[in-house]
């Protein structure tokens, strides 16, 4: 039996008659206006297809020698049984390649977190400006960070390198400012 959908407010089961209507409809209990779109996955029965035992003439799974191979890894070509095959983006991969892909960050589809180095670099350039004097250290640090992480992957969605560029420009201005201050200090000492 498919589990019932519940109203987000009163947790009452939403009747099937509410599904896929083209307008908001009040919940039978709490009267909250609801619009529910249900899809076939809701009523799909999950069938557990276990691996088939390999016979002598069959190709066996690389990881489970007793199981008959059902697919081939698209990356390394190893034979895989139904337990081991994992479909990602239309390709069947083995657990080893998935692990390698995640650790080397080549499998973008499995990444669930990324550090935004460009935002951090821009913050390093901007925040010390509030106190002015720390920029003498933060300006070179900003340029170092921008160059160090220039090629590192940013967000997995579209994102330009404008923050890096902006951070570098700001850091250059700060360095120029400090160079001018030091020059003026030397000049003043020279006059004395």
């Amino acid at each position, binding site marked *: 039996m498919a589990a*019932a*959908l519940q*109203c*987000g407010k009163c947790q009452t*089961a939403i009747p*099937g008659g509410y599904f896929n209507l083209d*307008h908001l409809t009040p919940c*039978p209990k709490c009267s909250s206006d609801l619009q529910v779109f249900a899809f*076939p996955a809701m009523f799909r029965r999950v069938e557990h297809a276990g691996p088939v035992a390999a016979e002598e003439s069959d190709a066996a799974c690389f990881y489970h020698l007793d199981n008959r191979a059902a697919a081939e890894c698209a990356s390394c070509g190893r034979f895989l049984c139904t337990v081991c095959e994992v479909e990602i983006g239309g390709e069947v991969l083995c657990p080893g390649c998935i692990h390698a892909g995640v650790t080397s960050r080549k499998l973008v589809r499995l990444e669930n977190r990324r550090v935004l180095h460009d935002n951090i670099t821009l913050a390093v350039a901007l925040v010390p400006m509030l106190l002015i004097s720390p920029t003498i250290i933060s300006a070179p640090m900003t340029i170092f960070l921008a160059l160090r992480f220039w090629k590192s992957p940013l967000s997995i*969605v579209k994102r330009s390198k404008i923050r890096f560029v902006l951070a570098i420009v700001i850091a250059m201005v700060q360095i120029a400012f400090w160079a001018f201050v030091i020059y003026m200090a030397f000049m003043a000492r020279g006059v004395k």
Partner: protein
Amino acid sequence: MTPVAYKRLSGRRRTLAEVTSLYLGQDHILQVRSSRISEDYRRFYFQDVQSLTIRKTAALHFVWAGFIVLVALLVGWATGDVRWPLGLLAAGALFLWLRGPSCDVRLQTGVSSERLRSLHRLKTAQRVVPLLRERIEAVQGRVVSVPDDYAASSVGAPPPPPLPSPDQMTHGLAPRRNDHAWFFGFLAIEAAVVVAWLFTGVRGLEQAAGAAAVVEFLAVVMVMVRQSQQRVPRMLRNMIFVAAGRWFLAQSTGMVLAYKAVLFDGVKGTLDPMTIVRGTFSYISVASLAAMAVVGMWLSLRTYPDE
């Protein structure tokens, strides 16, 4: 591995702590939660989505409303003039009205139920969810009929009615007459204060009228919120919207006229055109206030005669 191309969907939720947005991939929906330092991703594959539910929540954003009222109070305190905070409140009311009601969108899969935080405005949700529905149905197909073993349908609940018509207001929570009756009663008192001020010119009454206008704003917001959570007849519901519109018009026109009066300051003491315009406006404003109070009170009492 080929990079995944994403298309950003409308709607974005910004808080002090994070920004949430939604993207459409080739075979999945991507929810991105950014803390500005890092991003966390959550993927929902089209083939796994069981349902998408939109639930209308509040008529306006309480945090924004509170912020606007706070700023208006601060401006009023700083300037010592009631017109500036009233103008700010009017602008804020317009801003909130343009943003529309908020909502809660949930995406359910076989193992989880996740809130799509970026779709927190009903207008946006009703634009984006059909797009998602189209993509999901392209993968899964459509639900032609709900199977008999669906848990909720086995309870025997009747199919839902269509959107409530003006006179259909008996289902759901019982509406509270007090909200509307109190509000329109307050409008009547406010009208009386303004009339007394116009005819006597007492300074204290002018200040009381100014304070009443601020309270009226807060009251109309409160009633709008409460009626959004209840079934209220359309006539009475619309009266509140009209009251909000009247308040906005009166305050914004009053501000413009006050500004104009400054320009006409050179002819102070004479019966200049601006004085006539301001006087006429004041009478129209108070007449509309009184009319609204009477009609609203009558509607409230007519709708719930037993309470």
